[in-house]
């Protein structure tokens, strides 16, 4: 769109065209379409879509369960971060699960072994989680740079290995003998994250995750590193020509992504019930909800909390939707899937519009 065309078209149309091109509109469109599709599916099943969506919102924002909703939102944000950082560079991190459980493992080990008082132990546990999970995530970088194994593939393959290792450790060496499920001992008090008065779910962990997101936003927008990552994501060759260190940035981005997931794992473990239970980190599905949120946000830091909120609301409200409107909670998975698919298809339409010239 050159200056000339801006001048010759009537005013309202300019705004609409500009609005359509705004990066936030594509995801909104995808969400809208998904909601529509969801309504059709619900109606086809003979149920009431309006009641269903109302129940979702009610359930998620019910003052009694707001605590839980916020907690789910925070974990989804954290895992969205793990996906969004590499996404900014144009890479897919499918190894969130592995990074998550390694973080939980590190936290358990530190909490059980640490002689330090509460706050310091918790801090140490978080750092250990970030280091272990971050190192694990960073493995994919030299694999990509030197062995040309795409990050999407190496993270995909490494994740189940990490999950298996942690599962094994939880069952045998670290496991609580005689327990009904495979789980570690309850963490000593030093390893408990301070909770907010009266709340059973949200605790300091929420603030930690919010801090991470703010850090991401700051780095993305206000540091040279963040800028370079975005440049690589926009045009890798251009970045190389401009002197951007591809290998180093890839390493940093993957380490940061792994660390983010690891911290989420540590926080989960250091929150009630203060154990690492085999499979419990993965089963809530934060990893893929986070991935979906990151995709929907296009990796943009400002949109992450919004898209994560969308999926958190769907997840939490899903239970309530099932109770009051009798709509199966799996609808939230359906909606997530549709949103992602619509997003993929709409992005193509968008790409066809920019940059015809030059």
């Amino acid at each position, binding site marked *: 769109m*050159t200056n000339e065309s801006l001048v010759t078209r009537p005013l309202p149309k300019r705004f609409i065209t500009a609005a359509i091109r705004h990066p936030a509109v594509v995801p909104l469109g995808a969400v809208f379409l998904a909601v529509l599709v969801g309504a059709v599916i619900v109606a086809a099943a003979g149920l009431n879509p309006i009641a269903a969506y109302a129940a979702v919102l009610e359930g998620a924002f019910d003052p009694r369960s707001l605590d839980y909703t916020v907690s789910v939102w925070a974990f989804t944000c954290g895992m969205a971060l793990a996906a969004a950082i590499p996404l900014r560079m144009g890479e897919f991190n499918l190894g969130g699960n592995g990074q998550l459980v390694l973080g939980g493992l590190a936290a358990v080990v530190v909490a059980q072994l640490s002689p330090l008082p509460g706050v310091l132990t918790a801090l140490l546990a978080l750092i250990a989680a970030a280091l272990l999970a971050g190192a694990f995530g960073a493995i994919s970088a030299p694999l990509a740079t030197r062995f040309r194994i795409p990050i999407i593939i190496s993270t995909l393959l490494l994740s189940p290995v990490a999950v298996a290792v942690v599962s094994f450790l939880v069952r045998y060496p670290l496991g609580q003998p005689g327990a009904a499920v495979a789980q570690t001992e309850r963490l000593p008090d030093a390893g408990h994250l301070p909770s907010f008065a009266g709340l059973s779910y949200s605790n300091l962990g929420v603030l930690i995750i919010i801090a991470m997101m703010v850090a991401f936003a700051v780095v993305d927008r*206000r540091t040279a590193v963040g*800028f*370079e990552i975005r440049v690589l994501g926009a045009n890798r060759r251009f970045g190389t020509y*401009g*002197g951007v260190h591809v290998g180093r940035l890839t390493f940093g981005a993957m380490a940061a992504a792994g660390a983010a997931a690891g911290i989420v794992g540590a926080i989960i473990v250091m929150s009630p019930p203060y154990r690492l239970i085999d499979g419990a980190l993965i089963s809530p599905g934060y990893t893929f909800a986070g991935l979906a949120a990151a995709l929907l946000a296009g990796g943009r830091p400002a949109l992450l909390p919004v898209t994560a909120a969308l999926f958190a609301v769907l997840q939490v409200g899903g239970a309530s939707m099932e109770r009051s409107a009798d709509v199966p909670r799996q609808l939230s998975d359906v909606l997530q899937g549709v949103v992602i698919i619509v997003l993929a298809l709409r992005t193509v339409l968008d790409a066809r519009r920019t*940059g015809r*010239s*030059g």
Partner: protein
Amino acid sequence: MTDPAATLTGISKRYDGVVANDSVDLVLRRGTVHAVMGENGAGKSTLMSILFGLTAPDSGTIVVGGRELRLRGPADAIAAGLGMVHQHFRLFDSMTVAENVVYGAEPSRGMLLDRRTAATRVRELSDRYGLGLDPDATVGRLSAGVRQRVEIVKALHRDADILILDEPTAVLTPDEVTSLFAVIRRAADAGSTVVLVTHKIHEVLAISDEVTVLRAGRVTGRFLTGEVTGRELVEAMTGRDVVSVVNPGRGEIGDIALEVDGITVHERGVTRLADVSLQLRRGEILGVAGVSGNGQHELVEAILGAAATSAGSVRIEGRNVTALDVRRRRAAGLAVIPEDRRGEGTAITMTTAENLSVGHHRSAPIGGSGARRGWLSPSAQRSEAKRLIADYDIRTGSEQTLVGSLSGGNAQKVVIARELSHEAPVLVAEQPTQGVDVGAIESIHRRLLDYRDAGRAVLLVSHEISELQALADRVIVLYSGRVVAEFPKEEATTARIGAAMTGVAERVGGELP
């Protein structure tokens, strides 16, 4: 007198305001080798794309075998008896010669691929034209010369009577060129029509029967090869109005700013650069002439550090940077305007301000310094961008406009503004005015001259002889990866540069035939 094999009449085509072909007429007679000559951007590739159905002309007619054709795609062209061997081969490396040749037009028995018939066909065509192909060889292991023959047989398999060869000798060794010419001769003698798209004069003189020369989209000469001289061909290809920018001559020439010594680059068995050396001093513009594909881009990448070299060294301001990465070479005093602005020069999904700041983003005022190292100020990014936009007259809605929305000329200005603003001692400018309208060309030329006059060094790589004449203090010519000629400004005539560009100098010691 038999009908011509094909006649193109009044072919015109515009791309985005640039005229690629302007009312071009072309007559291809049966059984002849017809050369279509021109520099880069002369319009010969466009013309061939139109003939082969890859693009539709804005106006004009195509008559093949007496019938006017409406080509909707290559399939139609192939059906009409046209075959094209592209400059960049379209072969399946993992498949055999026979599989590649018959792909898309396979002999079959029911569902099964009839390999025996395919192999027989390949051998038959190969023998008829003297190509010597083995149907069962794996294409990925073959040399460029043999791969080209596979492409030729591909076209012949589809019963092409008109065979278009696009810059066929670009990837061949001299021996392979001789063999190719023998094949072309046999094909023509057998009644096929061969169209040879090339810029190499000595080849045209050696093998063709007729020549059509294009310049700036128009036909500037139609000759019978037997009756034309190399000089006439060069004139038809390169003669141009003198550009109005005046180069007042050199000022002070300073120390050596860039020294390239013995750079050699191999790529997939083909030598792209062979032992290239040059010296560039402060206060001078060194022009690098040559038709695209003779190693210029590889030279730029070797200097920048974006590609590997197998031998040779690069020194910037006396420092040996051969082992250094791109960032450190830039820090040593290098700026580069790459030729592919969308692929290498800009990020079209980022804003103008962001594009302008790459390379500056780690130093003040955009980046921090001292205690604030590593930080970046978006507001400084924007204000710096506004400054450059005003200074270079970049037509954009705002500094936040995505570069992908800018016109070609303005996007190029973004690249130039950014690179010049580094004020690096050495500036490499590769095709800086490509796809840019005339008004902007003048201002870009002015900038480059001012840059030099400020005591810096400029390496100007260009396909346009006139641009080099307007700006360069010295001109070297690259041909097939080697420096084949060097001229000081006074001796850099169109005829001499053109001759060197087309390989004549190499063959006949600098004298035109």
